[in-house]
Structure formats: C-alpha cells, structure tokens
C-alpha cells in the first residue's frame, strides 16, 4: 500500500438543479485526478418513442422532456418540422413566438438568478432562508418570475407545458387588448430586471476565468431566440465563422460515457464547448438593445465575460433584453388574420435549433410522406455543457484543495449551478461525489 492518500468527495444529490445528478471528485495527495458529473436521472427514451408518432404531436411530446423549458422544446420542434415541410412562419405569428419565448426566458432566468443561484453567493441553503434576510430581493425575483409566467399563460394557456403551440403557429391568438393588459406588468419587470443586474453585480465573485469555446445562434439584427446561424468563438474550420442549422451534426458529436445517463456533446476535433447566456452574450453583444448594453457596462461587464460565476450577471442582462423585447412586441402587435399557417407533410428531413434559456437546443426529424416520424434526434443544452462543467470543476478543485471539505463541496456545487444545468433535459443528468483515493 502506498503512503499516498487518495480522497473522494461525493455529493449524492445535487441541489437546486433541475433533475438528478451527482458530482464525484477523485483526489490523490494534492492533485485532482478526476472530476465527473454523473447523471442518474433515469432515461426516458424520447427519441425512441417519437418513431411512429405524427409530426403534429412532436411539439407537445418533446415538451415533456423538460418542465423548466417546455417552450424551447416546442419551438425547436416546430422549426424543425416547418423546415422539413418548407414553411416559414413570419410576421405577427413569428413575433408571438418570440414573445412566448421571452416569457420562458424571464421565468427561467428569474428562477435561476434569485431562487437557485443567488443563495450560493450569499451563503444560504435556499431562497426561502435567503428571504428572511433579503426579503426585497426574493420578492422581486418571485414577481419577475410571475410576469414571465403570465406571458406564457396568456399565450400558451399555462406556464408549464403550454397547450396553444402548434406546427405553423398557434391554436388561438390573443387580441391586441389582451396583450395590452400585461404591458404595465412588463414595464415593471423591465425596471426590476435592471435592478436585478445591479443586485447581481454586487455579489462576491471568485477570480476564475477560462478561455471558452462559445457556441450560440447568431442573427444579423436581433438577439437570437428562434432563428439564426450557428456561430462559434473559435469558428468551424476552413475560415468558416458560422454554419447553418442543417450542418450541426457535421460539426458536433454526442458521446455516451459509462458514468452518465446523459450523452456528452463535443465539437469535432476540439472537444468541450460552452452554450447558454455567456455564449449568446459574447457572440451577440452588438445586437443587444442599448438599455441592456448600458446595464451590462454599468455592472462592469465587457463585451465578453469569461468568468462562469458571473454568468448570474449575464443572465440578469438577458432578463433586461427579454423584458425589453416583450414590451416591444406587445406594443406593436396587430392580431394576425389566421392563428396558424397550414402545413403539407412530405417525405423529408428538417432541422431546428433555438436558444433555450440554458443554450442551444437542436432537433432533427425525418418523416415519411404522411408526416409520420421515422427518426428523431434531440440535443439539449446541458448535454452540450457537461464537458465544460467537468473541466471547470477540475480546475476549480485543483486551485482550492486546501479548503475544508464542506467548503470545497459547496464551491463545486456552485460551479455546477453556474450553468443552470437542467438534468431532466440532459438525460434525455447530477450527485457531488468527492473521492479522495
């Protein structure tokens, strides 16, 4: 037996993440040997049972992959199907989709910033305990979340698994006056989002930066939600800075590893990459509305942020964007003549990729001539970030091995929550296990 001490630190069930996963750090002497994020969320086999279902069912079925970002699933599914059948949703219907997506971003970002992430920085187990000392902040977060939910409920019928989204548009579209009724709430939310940026900027951030390979949608004139080309901060080779959604699988591969029920996604020939708010911000700073750019600069953010702990500030800046965009759409909305565009199924393949709150969500379907799904592929954001999270953990733990176990563990958990990981999504994912061998 060697005199060396190997220790393991394990976190059995990671808290304040969506879904079930665990973290395991293996440490020998003063070196981290391994950092693994295991996903033991049971597999639910969506891609398999989508086979044989009608195209029209895909938005509602895939929404059930994740209760936190159902709109993202509905949107990526609709876009992929419309791509296959050669239809484009434009005008007010396109605006309503963006508005619905803004609702989900506001709900999801407010939940993460105030309920899941801020307690880490302030040293609370949860937002309810945080509320005893910081009632104003928690109440602001809850009310912001509620405004996001109100937008989703109006457009979608309910906030979780909305029932009003269909291929080609909606079942029923709101009247101008119905959207008008929410305008004051969204105006309040925009102010609250600006306050959220100021609140987030005051949190204590560990000094931690890495040179990430950011991947996000890019759109020439708008901050991306539903549409755009895929951009990467390191490009795609051969001088290409962007690719089309249909080229996704030529550049990204999913790997299946023994320690996890989630598939790890890698960018070919480079490996780990980073999706989500920090990636979107870095690749789309120029198309943020001035009010969001200004809030970012007042919070001390540059055009690119490489400290994942500061993702909470970037998320807050995106809250400003989402409230601003929602307001713009609501104020200029004219009720469309028809709630949806008719689609004609055909034997075809289609690709869709939209910006879920946590990053790009890719769907691909192949159909027979009746629109029955022959096969489907879905790559959620957390599967794409998993490798990057493990790298962060490795680096972070290596720098902080001197910390007492409890503190090291909490710091690692916080590093995972930087990504707002959605484990339900990744299994289509977390437990900190620290192994000191």
């Amino acid at each position, binding site marked *: 037996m060697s005199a060396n001490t190997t220790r393991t630190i394990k976190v059995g069930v990671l808290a304040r993440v969506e879904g079930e996963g665990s973290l395991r750090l293996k440490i020998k002497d003063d070196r981290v040997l391994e950092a693994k994020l295991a996903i033991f969320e049971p597999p639910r086999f969506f891609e398999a049972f989508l086979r044989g279902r009608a195209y029209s069912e895909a938005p509602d079925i895939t929404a059930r992959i994740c209760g936190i970002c159902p709109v993202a699933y509905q949107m990526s599914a609709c876009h992929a199907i419309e791509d296959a059948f050669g239809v484009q949703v434009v005008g007010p219907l396109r605006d309503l989709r963006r508005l619905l997506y803004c609702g989900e971003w506001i709900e999801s970002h407010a939940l993460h910033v105030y309920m899941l992430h801020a307690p880490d920085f302030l040293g609370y187990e949860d937002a309810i305990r945080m509320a005893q000392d910081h009632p104003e902040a928690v109440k602001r977060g809850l009310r912001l979340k509620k405004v996001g939910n109100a937008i989703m409920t109006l457009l979608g019928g309910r906030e979780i698994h909305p029932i009003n989204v*269909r291929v080609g548009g909606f079942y029923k579209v709101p009247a101008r006056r119905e959207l008008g009724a929410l305008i004051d709430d969204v105006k309040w939310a925009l102010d609250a989002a600006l306050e959220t940026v100021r609140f987030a900027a005051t949190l204590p951030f560990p000094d931690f930066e890495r040179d990430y390979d950011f991947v996000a949608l890019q759109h020439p004139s708008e901050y991306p939600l539903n549409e755009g080309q895929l951009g990467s901060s390191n490009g795609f080779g051969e001088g290409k800075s962007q690719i089309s959604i249909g080229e996704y699988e030529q550049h990204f591969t999913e790997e299946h590893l023994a320690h996890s029920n989630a598939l790890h996604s890698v960018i070919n020939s480079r490996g780990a990459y980073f999706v989500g708010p920090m990636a979107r911000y870095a690749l789309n700073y120029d198309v943020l509305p001035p009010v969001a750019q200004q809030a970012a600069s007042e919070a001390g953010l540059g055009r690119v942020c490489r400290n994942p702990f500061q993702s909470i500030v970037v998320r807050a800046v995106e809250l400003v964007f989402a409230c601003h965009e929602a307001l713009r759409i609501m104020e200029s909305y004219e009720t469309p003549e028809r709630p949806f565009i008719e689609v004609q199924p055909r034997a075809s393949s289609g690709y869709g990729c939209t910006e879920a709150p946590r990053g790009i969500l890719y769907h691909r379907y192949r159909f027979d001539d009746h629109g029955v799904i022959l096969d489907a592929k879905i790559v959620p954001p957390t599967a794409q970030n998993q490798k990057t999270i493990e790298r962060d953990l490795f680096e972070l733990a290596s720098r902080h091995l001197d910390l007492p176990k409890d503190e090291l563990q909490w710091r690692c958990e916080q590093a995972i929550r930087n990504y707002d990981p959605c484990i339900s999504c990744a299994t289509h994912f977390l437990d900190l296990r620290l192994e000191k061998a």
Partner: protein
Amino acid sequence: MPKPAKRPKLAVWKFASCDGCQLSLLDCEDELLAIAGAVEIANFPEASRAVVGGPYALSLVEGSITTPHDAERIHAIRRSSRMLVTIGACATAGGIQALRNFKNVREMTAIVYAHPEYIATLNKSTPIKDHVAVDFELRGCPVNKFQLVELISALLHGRKPNIPAFSVCMECKRRGAICIMTARGIPCMGPVTQAGCGALCPGYERGCFGCFGPKETPNSHSLSTIWSGLGVGEQDILRAYRTFNANAEPFRKEAESHEREHHQDH
C-alpha cells in the same frame, strides 16, 4: 412559555419525470413564502441544499418507477411518510415514458444510447401505486398549481381535498362554453378526461388531449365512435389514448382495441 407549534414536514421526491409538476410548487409565486412558513420544507432538492430527516407529514412524489434502484427507493419513502401523494401523470399513470411499455426496451435503449449496457432500466414505466400505498393522486401533465395548493392545505388540516373526479366536459358546461366537438367538429377527449385544468384546451379552440388522464368510468369506446364519425383514423385514435396517460387502464385498453382493429384491417 409555550413552545412554538412544530411545523409539519413536507418532502418532495422525484422519480422519472420532467420536473414540471414539482416546479408547479415554485410557480405558486404568491403562496410560496406562506407555504414555506406553514410547513417545514424538509426535502426539496430542486429548491434547497438543506435536507432534514424523516418522518415526514406529507410526501409529494413526482415521476414514475423505471429503474430497479427506484423500485427500492419508493418503499423507503413510503415508510418515512405519514401521507404520500402522487403528483402528475408520471407518478399516477407512468407518464409519457410509459410508451416504452408497448415497445422493446433494449431496442429503444439502442436507439438513444451508443452503449446500451451502461443503462440500468426496467422494461416498464409504472405508477407509484403499483409499488406502495398512495393516499391521494393528483392528476395532470402537469398538475394544476391551484389544485396542488388546495391539496397540501386540505391534507395538512385533515380535511378532504376539494378535487372533483368528473370530466373536462363538465368544466366546459359550467363555464357556459359551447362544445367544440358538436359545434365545430374538433375531436376532443374532454368526455373521458378528468377535470382539473378548467377545460383549458377547448378555451383555446383545441380538442382536449387527455393530459389529466381518464375520469371515473369513462366511456372511451363511445367517444371513439364519435371520433370515427368525425373522420379520425384508427391510428390517430390509438395514438390519442396512447400519449401522456398511456398506461392508465381505461386508456390502455381503448388503445389496445384499436391496435387489434388496425391489425384486422391489414
């Protein structure tokens, strides 16, 4: 000095699910801090790092049983819970992932995963009640958050929750809404689906797709006849029953009958 009354312990447990039903609790923005004041949130990993040991006054269980480990875990939860309530279609009927019950699981694993041998999974996705005694079932994919608040407060005060078992149809009628199936020929599962959503879909000019699962004694066969009359094909009827509550017995049987008829057609 009298000791402050001990608050009952509430625990939230997750099995195979999308997290949507437990998120409903966090979506009670107006009630959340009050609920947190009235009970001790003893285990709710999605919201808190803090874990308090049992026994628990009330356990809310989300998700279905799909792995050998989970089939064990639910028994320990039952033993430490005075009341155990299932929330949502996954926990009460097996959920959308019960679609595996009608396919070969090894094949399905191979479709999603390059190394099926790394995956520990059962052949069927089953509801919690197949494994342990359940005190109350809350329907929906997802549950209705107002029903969830009503249920928690009723159970903690020892009264019967006001959660009707009649159909979505009744909710339309109470609202004075015109039936979209008779008036407009939109196929709707409202007559066989349990109430609770407030007849949401018909209000959006969409037929109910049964996310709250079968009502008490549903006449699914007669509804299928109406659907056929509206021109809905056998395969589409089959798929309608075989979605979010596919493994709930009345829906399972109705789907199977269309499977047979479909095979006889060929």
